[in-house]
C-alpha cells in the first residue's frame, strides 16, 4: 500500500496543477453546453409566443363577427399595444438568447393589463362564446417562458399574478353565466400551472444534464493535460536514463578501471578503448549545443560503441539533428548504419570510420542524411553489384520508412553509404 500512496503523491501535484490551469484558461467555455441549452430553451419559448398569436387572431375575428366589442377603439388599442410588445419581446429575447428579468416583469405586467382592458371592451358573452378569447394562450406562454428559463419561484409568482388578472377579467362573465364559467376559469388555471410545471421540469432536467456534460468535459480536458505532462516527464526521464547508461557503460567504466589501477593505461588496447570513449564523449558534447541531445544521435553513438571490439574507432559528427524523429525512423537509420559498419568491420580493413548526421531545411520538412564513410579498401561496385547483405539490409530498411540509401565505393578509395530520409 505504501508504494501506491507514494506514486499518488508524485502524480497528484501534476494533475492538480493541470486542473487549475485548464479551468482558468477555459473560463469562457466552462459551461458551454449549459449555456447553449439555455439558449435553445429560450428560443423554444419565443417560438411558442409567436404560435400563440394564431388563437388570439381567431378569437378577435369571432368577436368581431358576433359584435361582442362594446368599445371597439379600446379593444383595438389594447391589441395594438399587445402586438407591439410581443414584437419587441420576440426580437430582444431571440437576439439575446435569454429572457431577462426586465422582459419577464414587463411581459407579465403587459399581459395582465391587456387581459383586464380587453374585459372592459367586450360584452361578458364574449368569453363564453369564443374559446381562448382572453389572451389565455399568451398568458400560459408567458408563465412557460419564465419556467423554461429555469426560474421556478418567479414562474409561480407569474402564474399567481396572471391568474389573478384573468379571474378578475372574467368576473362579469361568471356573474352572468354562473358556475359554468367558473369551471372554464379553473380549467385555464390548470393549463397555466400545468404548462409552467412541465416546462420547468423539462428545463431543469436538460440544464442539469448540460451541467454534467460540462463538468465531464472539464475533467476530461484536465486529465488529458495531466497525462500529457506525465508523458513528457517520462520521456525526459527516459532520455536521461539513456544518457546516463551511455556514459556509464563507456567512459565511466574505463576511467574507473584506470583509476583503481586495474588497467595499464599505456597498453595499446586500453588506449584504443580510451580513444573510442573520448569519441563518444566528444559526440555527446558537440551535438547541437543549443538543444537537447537527439534520440538519433544517442542511438547512433550507442550502435557505434559496439564496433570497438572490431578495433574500429568511429568519429561522430552531428549537426542540426532533429529531436522529434519517430522511433521507427530512428530504428531504421540506426539499423542501416549498423549494417554499413558491419560491412566496414568485415571488408574495409581499416580502424577508422566517420558517422555523420546533417539535416537540411526543405519544403517537406528536414532532409536528414546519415553518412557512414571509411577510408579502407573499397570495392568495385560494378564487379560486386550490391546484392546480398547490403541491398536487403540497408536499402530495405530505408525503403520501409520511405527513405533512400546510396552506396559509393571504388577500390582503394574507401566506401561511403548515404542514408536519406525526409518526412
Amino acid at each position: 500500500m505504501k508504494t501506491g500512496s507514494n506514486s499518488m503523491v508524485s502524480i497528484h501535484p501534476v494533475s492538480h496543477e493541470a486542473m487549475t490551469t485548464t479551468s482558468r484558461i477555459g473560463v469562457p467555455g466552462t459551461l458551454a453546453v449549459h449555456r447553449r441549452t439555455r439558449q435553445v430553451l429560450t428560443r423554444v419559448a419565443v417560438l411558442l409566443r409567436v404560435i400563440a398569436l394564431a388563437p388570439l387572431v381567431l378569437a378577435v375575428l369571432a368577436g368581431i363577427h358576433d359584435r361582442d366589442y362594446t368599445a371597439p377603439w379600446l379593444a383595438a388599442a389594447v391589441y395594438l399595444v399587445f402586438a407591439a410588445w410581443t414584437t419587441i419581446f420576440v426580437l430582444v429575447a431571440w437576439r439575446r438568447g435569454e429572457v431577462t428579468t426586465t422582459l419577464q416583469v414587463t411581459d407579465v405586467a403587459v399581459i395582465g393589463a391587456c387581459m383586464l382592458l380587453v374585459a372592459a371592451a367586450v360584452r361578458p358573452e364574449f368569453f363564453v362564446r369564443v374559446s381562448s378569447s382572453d389572451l389565455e394562450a399568451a398568458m400560459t406562454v408567458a408563465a412557460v417562458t419564465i419556467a423554461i428559463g429555469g426560474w421556478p419561484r418567479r414562474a409561480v409568482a407569474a402564474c399567481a399574478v396572471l391568474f389573478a388578472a384573468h379571474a378578475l377579467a372574467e368576473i362579469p362573465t361568471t356573474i352572468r353565466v354562473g358556475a359554468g364559467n367558473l369551471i372554464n376559469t379553473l380549467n385555464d388555471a390548470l393549463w397555466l400551472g400545468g404548462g409552467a410545471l412541465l416546462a420547468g421540469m423539462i428545463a431543469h432536467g436538460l440544464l442539469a444534464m448540460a451541467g454534467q456534460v460540462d463538468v465531464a468535459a472539464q475533467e476530461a480536458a484536465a486529465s488529458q493535460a495531466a497525462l500529457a505532462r506525465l508523458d513528457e516527464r517520462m520521456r525526459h526521464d527516459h532520455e536521461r536514463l539513456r544518457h546516463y547508461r551511455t556514459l556509464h557503460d563507456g567512459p565511466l567504466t574505463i576511467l574507473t578501471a584506470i583509476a583503481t589501477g586495474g588497467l595499464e593505461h599505456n597498453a595499446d588496447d586500453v588506449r584504443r578503448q580510451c580513444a573510442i570513449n573520448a569519441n563518444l564523449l566528444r559526440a555527446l558534447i558537440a551535438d547541437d549545443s543549443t538543444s537537447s541531445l537527439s534520440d538519433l544521435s544517442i542511438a547512433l553513438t550507442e550502435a557505434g560503441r559496439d564496433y570497438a571490439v572490431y578495433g574500429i574507432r568511429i568519429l561522430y559528427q552531428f549537426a542540426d539533428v532533429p529531436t522529434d524523429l519517430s522511433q521507427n525512423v530512428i530504428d531504421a537509420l540506426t539499423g542501416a548504419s549498423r549494417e554499413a559498419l558491419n560491412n566496414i568491420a568485415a571488408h574495409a580493413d581499416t580502424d577508422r570510420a566517420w558517422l555523420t548526421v546533417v539535416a537540411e531545411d526543405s519544403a517537406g520538412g528536414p532532409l536528414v542524411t546519415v553518412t557512414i564513410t571509411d577510408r579502407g579498401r573499397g570495392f568495385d561496385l560494378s564487379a560486386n553489384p550490391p546484392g546480398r547483405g547490403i541491398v536487403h539490409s540497408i536499402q530495405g530498411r530505408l525503403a520501409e520508412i520511405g527513405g533512400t540509401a546510396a552506396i559509393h565505393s571504388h577500390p582503394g578509395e574507401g566506401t561511403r553509404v548515404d542514408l536519406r530520409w525526409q518526412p
Partner: protein
Amino acid sequence: MADVTVAAIDDDRMLLGGLQFWLAPVTDLDLVATAPTVAAYLALDVRVDVVLLDLNLRDGSVPAANVTRLLASGAAVLVVSTIPDAEHVLATIEAGAAGYITKDNDLPVLVEAIRHVAEGGVAISPELAFVLSNDHRPGRPQLSPQESIVLRAYASGATLQATARRAGIAYGTARQYLERIKRKYTDAGRPTHTKLDLVERVREDRLELDGLHPPSQP
C-alpha cells in the same frame, strides 16, 4: 630542406608532454617551444614556422585574437582542440589560421598537417570541412554548388580521391576547391578582424608592458 620548427601553446601540460614525446622521433619536425598562453609564448621571443594553438585556452583569451597575434609574429597557425566548437573554429579560420584539426587525430595526420602548413599550405581536416559545410551564419562566404559538393563529401570523412570521384572532377581540382573555400573564409575575415583585433592587441600588449594582466584574465 631545413627542419620545420614548431611551437605548441596549450594549457594542458600532459598534452604538451605527450606532444614532445610524440614528435621526438619525427626527424624533420623540431618542437622548440611550449607555452600555456599566447602572451607567455610571445615573451619567449622565439621564431617558429608553425604554432600549434589550442582553440580554447583557459586564460579566457579570444581564439581569433590569439591567431591574429601569432600571425603577427611571423608563424603560421594550426589550431587544435578537443571539441570542434564551430563558432570559434570559424572565427580562427577567418582570422587567418592555416588549418584546424581535432586532438584525437593520429600522429601521421598531425605531422602531415604541420608539414603542409609549414610549406604555406592549408590543413583542411574532415572536421574543419564539417564545420565549414554547416556554417549557417547569414554573412558566410558564398560557395559554388561544386564547392559545396566537394566540401560535404570531404567533411563526411571520404578521402580526397573519393571526394573528387564523387564530384566528377580530378584529384588536383578537388584539392584546389578546398583551398579556394578556405581562402574565401580567410578573405572574408580579414577586413573586420584585423582592425578590431589590432586595437585589442595593442591594448593588451600595453597592459602586459605595465606588468598587468589583461582584464579578461582571472
